[in-house]
């Protein structure tokens, strides 16, 4: 395009530039400056000298991280929790959507949807309080159920071996309904003629699910899978941090909670930035690799 023409078009859309100015400034200040601020991971941060004035330290903080006795445990916990959450949490919304798709629209369907979506709107603090109350020894409803069936009563939240399951399954409970919306939306786009044709050919309900519904869901499933694999190292801070207690910390300490404790509570800014940066880089690599594989295997990819 000739420069003059672009210039006229730019002049014509001056109002758009005025509108977009504030958000772009926001992006630069609040997203890009911290991105460059990551350089403190390679420095010895000094409060007086600030980010730019502190002396360079090279890869010192990364070496400290890799040699730290906590490192293998952090990686292990982060990966196990993420994969566990992915494997347990990914299929449930799909199954829920497929099941809901079979039921005719009416009071039953609407109530199921309304009730299963609701927990998504419960805050993390309240969610964790619910978990703690329900699981508290002796008075919690789960503990009572256990003793009702004659099983031994334990302090669930203080049991390191149970932490991951509690975290993952409470997450499934909270997010399955909301997570199914996107699949329900995809299923509603199926051409009704397909179902009619299948019926004419004598396909059973089950066959219709297998041969029409499931293939419909593949593209969106692949995209969501790429996204969740790409953030596998970025396991949520908020819920884990609230569920942590001194008894279960051996299985509940993940990278993000470690960054918070060392960095903000311990005021060790450079070291914890290095940990955070290490985490982001792994995530980015994973995202690119998974996207590449998905593009090779199917036509679905993020870019």
């Amino acid at each position, binding site marked *: 395009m000739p420069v003059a023409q672009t210039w006229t078009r730019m002049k014509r859309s001056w109002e758009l530039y005025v509108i977009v100015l504030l958000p772009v400034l926001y992006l630069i200040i609040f997203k890009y400056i*911290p991105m460059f*601020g990551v350089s403190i991971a390679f420095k010895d941060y000094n409060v007086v000298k600030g980010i730019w004035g502190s002396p360079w330290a090279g890869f010192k903080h990364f070496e400290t991280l890799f040699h730290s006795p906590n490192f293998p445990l952090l990686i292990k916990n982060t990966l196990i929790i993420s994969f566990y959450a992915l494997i347990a949490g990914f299929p449930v919304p799909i199954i829920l959507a497929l099941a809901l798709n079979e039921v005719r629209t009416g009071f039953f369907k609407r109530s199921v949807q309304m009730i299963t979506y609701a927990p998504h709107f419960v805050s993390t603090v309240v969610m964790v309080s619910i978990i703690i109350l329900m699981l508290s020894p002796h008075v919690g409803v789960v503990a009572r159920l256990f003793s009702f069936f004659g099983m031994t009563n334990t302090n669930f939240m203080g049991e390191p071996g149970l932490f991951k399951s509690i975290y993952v399954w409470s997450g499934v409970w909270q997010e399955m309904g909301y997570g199914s919306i996107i699949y329900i939306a995809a299923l509603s786009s199926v051409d009704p003629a397909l179902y009619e044709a299948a019926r004419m050919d004598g396909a059973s309900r089950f066959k219709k699910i297998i041969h029409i519904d499931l293939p419909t869901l593949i593209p969106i499933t692949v995209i969501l899978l790429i996204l969740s694999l790409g953030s596998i190292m970025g396991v949520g801070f908020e819920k884990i941090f609230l569920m942590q207690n001194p008894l279960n910390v051996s299985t509940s300490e993940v990278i993000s909670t470690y960054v918070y404790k060392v960095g903000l509570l311990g005021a060790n800014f450079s070291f914890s930035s290095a940990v955070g940066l290490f985490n982001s880089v792994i995530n980015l690599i994973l995202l690119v690799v998974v996207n590449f594989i998905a593009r090779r295997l199917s036509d679905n990819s993020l870019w």
Partner: protein
Amino acid sequence: MLRTQKIKEPIGDRVLLAIICIILAAITLSVLYPLLYILSSSLSGPNAVVSGKVWLFPVDFSLKAYKSIFHSTQLMMGYYNSIIYTVVGTLINVAFTVMIAFPLSQRGMPGRKIIMLLMMITMFFDGGLIPTYLLVKQLHMLDTRWALWLPGAFSVFQVIIARTFFQTSIPAELQEAAQIDGCRDFRYLISVALPLSKPILAVMTLMYAVGHWNAYFDALIYLRSEHLFPLQYVLRNMLILNAADPAMLAGTTQKLRDQGFEQVLKYALIVVACIPVLIMYPFVQKHFVKGVMIGSLKG
């Protein structure tokens, strides 16, 4: 007489449908039961809750826990703060989202792709906790309300949804007609595009508002003064760190406290914290299904 005969579904299909309905009912009950249990416990007497007599309905009905909650200035302060954070924060969010999504939806604007790229990069890579914290500190926003409003001024995901909506759901002819009548971009946004985007604005408002109402993490890292704490932060202290406000227990007898009144209090706190969201929820539920659909299918 004309009689229409319905094609009978094969037996296998009906069995499958029955199984599906049973599964759905089981899932729904498993979601509903804990919620009902919490509500019932909050309305029961402390003795009944602690000794495990409450299963589904309130036992020894009492509103005492709710009455004590209103004595807590900490909690009321938290409520007040959360309302401020939510209202102002959501206004900022919606304004910023529209301000970047609308120009990005205008195909005639040079530089549109660069802004889009600038925005998409932040989705996959960000500075992380510490650099962002240091920035907020440098801007002297630590321990002010701005720390909870500005750093997350819009979400890229919502911008993409809004941009897609502007692009696909508003007929291009409308803009041409408006332009011929001499309506420029700003006027077009205010008088044509926004009034036509009410459903998407409703979803966006809900999502942002719920996000602000439920957030505690920003308060945890940026705020120090007690009079600024939002509700969720106060709740965390009371429910998870077990630091009950003495004012809540002031009006109770020692006997009641021995029976486990604090336990009932916790259930009541959970209910009170969820009320605003639950009141909003049924009215907007229809819309957000639509919002997710726009974002997922046309994106």
